[in-house]
């Protein structure tokens, strides 16, 4: 390391987060899944237990301290308990992000014994019928049983419900449902449009009226139940007029590793063409974090075009999300078109104005994944 590289080196922050996407296998078929639509190609190439342990060790050495086990459905992996124990021994705060499918009370107890810090269970809706229709399987009663078992075993209970046009009007029922399960935290996460959600966006995005109503109901609920249950409401990017930082800033905080061992600055970054995607079998995580083209390219602000380049807010949002810029404009270096200063803002507005379903929902499953690959509609 010398010259300019050394100067650059000083500015490279240490990662804090490792997202371990253990598998793309999942019993559910949610049409807003953020996994790549061509995931079926990666089902047979999952990292082994030992390979994951090496990834966990290297990321911890770099400074990562939050570890998310995600997927797909991470509980599908039979070595989950081993990996949790290993991660916890390394000093990670270990988060399990699950649909609840593949969990059992025995497994919850075993995970607790191995030091798992937190379980987040997702529901698709607060009614059994809609939950099961959206998730594509009869999961509702099992999820409730697992949420109760999580609580009974002394974990902080975090419920996650992804919001979209088909469930957002039930927001009051959702909040009371969460309360009945004694949730400590509730994430009302509006769908963000990547992966399968991008494919289905015309049929998922809520209207302005729906969103305003949901926010008002949430605020009222918060006022009535202050302190009991913490409620986070995440507005869809498309309704903002300033973009969000991409994974808290590209290459500043976050490392995502896909089931087959690709290393990404966010779990969606593979949609951006033109990069050699670094792989854990070819490079150390340290090299990937510090030296790889993929992690360096959108670090900082040097890559920016106008209007970002001369914008006085460029260090606040770092130009927004690179994947969103690419998906909506075809140019990953463009200003995130969510921004009101973007000349392409109208592509976002057009989407937001469309109300009512136009096409049937494409559920996330292997058959549809193959069809999307074949039809060339995949965004990787």
């Amino acid at each position, binding site marked *: 390391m010398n010259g300019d590289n050394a100067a650059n080196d000083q500015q490279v922050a240490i990662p*804090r987060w490792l997202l371990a996407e253990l598998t793309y296998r999942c019993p559910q078929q949610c049409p807003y899944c953020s996994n790549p639509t061509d995931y079926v190609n990666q089902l047979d190439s999952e990292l082994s237990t030992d390979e994951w342990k090496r990834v966990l060790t290297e990321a911890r050495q770099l*400074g990562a301290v*939050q570890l998310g086990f995600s997927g797909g459905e991470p509980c599908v992996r039979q070595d989950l308990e081993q990996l949790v124990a290993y991660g916890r021994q390394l000093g990670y*705060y270990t*988060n399990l992000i699950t649909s609840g499918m593949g969990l059992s009370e025995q497994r919850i107890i075993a995970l607790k014994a191995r030091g798992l*810090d*937190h379980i987040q269970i997702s529901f698709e809706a607060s009614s059994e019928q809609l939950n099961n229709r959206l998730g594509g399987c009869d999961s509702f009663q099992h999820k409730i049983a697992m949420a109760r078992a999580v609580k009974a075993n*002394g974990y*902080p209970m975090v419920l996650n419900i992804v919001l979209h046009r088909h469930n957002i009007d039930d927001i009051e029922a959702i909040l009371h449902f969460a309360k009945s399960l004694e949730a*400590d935290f509730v994430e009302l996460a509006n769908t963000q449009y990547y992966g399968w959600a991008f494919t289905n966006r015309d049929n998922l995005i809520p209207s302005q009226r729906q969103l305003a109503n949901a926010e008002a109901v949430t605020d009222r609920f918060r006022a009535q139940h202050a302190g009991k249950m913490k409620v986070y409401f995440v507005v869809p990017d498309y309704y903002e007029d300033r973009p969000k930082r991409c994974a808290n800033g590209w290459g500043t905080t976050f490392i995502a590793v896909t089931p087959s061992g690709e290393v990404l600055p966010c779990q969606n970054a593979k949609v951006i063409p033109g990069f050699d995607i670094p792989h854990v079998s070819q490079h150390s995580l340290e090299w990937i974090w510090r030296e790889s083209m993929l992690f360096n390219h959108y670090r900082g602000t040097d890559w920016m075009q106008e209007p970002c380049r001369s914008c006085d807010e460029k260090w606040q949002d770092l130009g927004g999300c690179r994947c969103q810029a690419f998906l909506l404009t075809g140019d990953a270096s463009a200003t995130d078109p969510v921004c009101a200063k973007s000349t392409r803002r109208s592509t976002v507005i057009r989407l937001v104005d469309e109300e009512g379903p136009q096409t049937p929902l494409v559920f996330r499953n292997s058959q549809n994944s193959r069809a999307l690959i074949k039809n060339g509609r995949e965004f990787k």
Partner: protein
Amino acid sequence: MIDATTILRIRPGFRLQWEDAQQAHILLYPEGMVKLNPSAAAILLRCDGLRSIDDIVVELKTEFPDVSDLANDVYEFLAVAIEKGWVDSER
């Protein structure tokens, strides 16, 4: 709310630990963390479900005799920590 006899603990499921990489104590919680300055860490490390706030103040006064208005700082910080849900009382 809180007084000299209140006994606080780190909220269950949260974890306080030293991070070499950040050269700081950090408080970890579901999908988040906060980096603590040395005085915040000194207080939170003593919220162990055993010491009362008065015990904490007395200890810190011994350890940092030059800090003026230390008790006030401790109460102010703990009020924030309770509001943020970092610590709670078992009672």
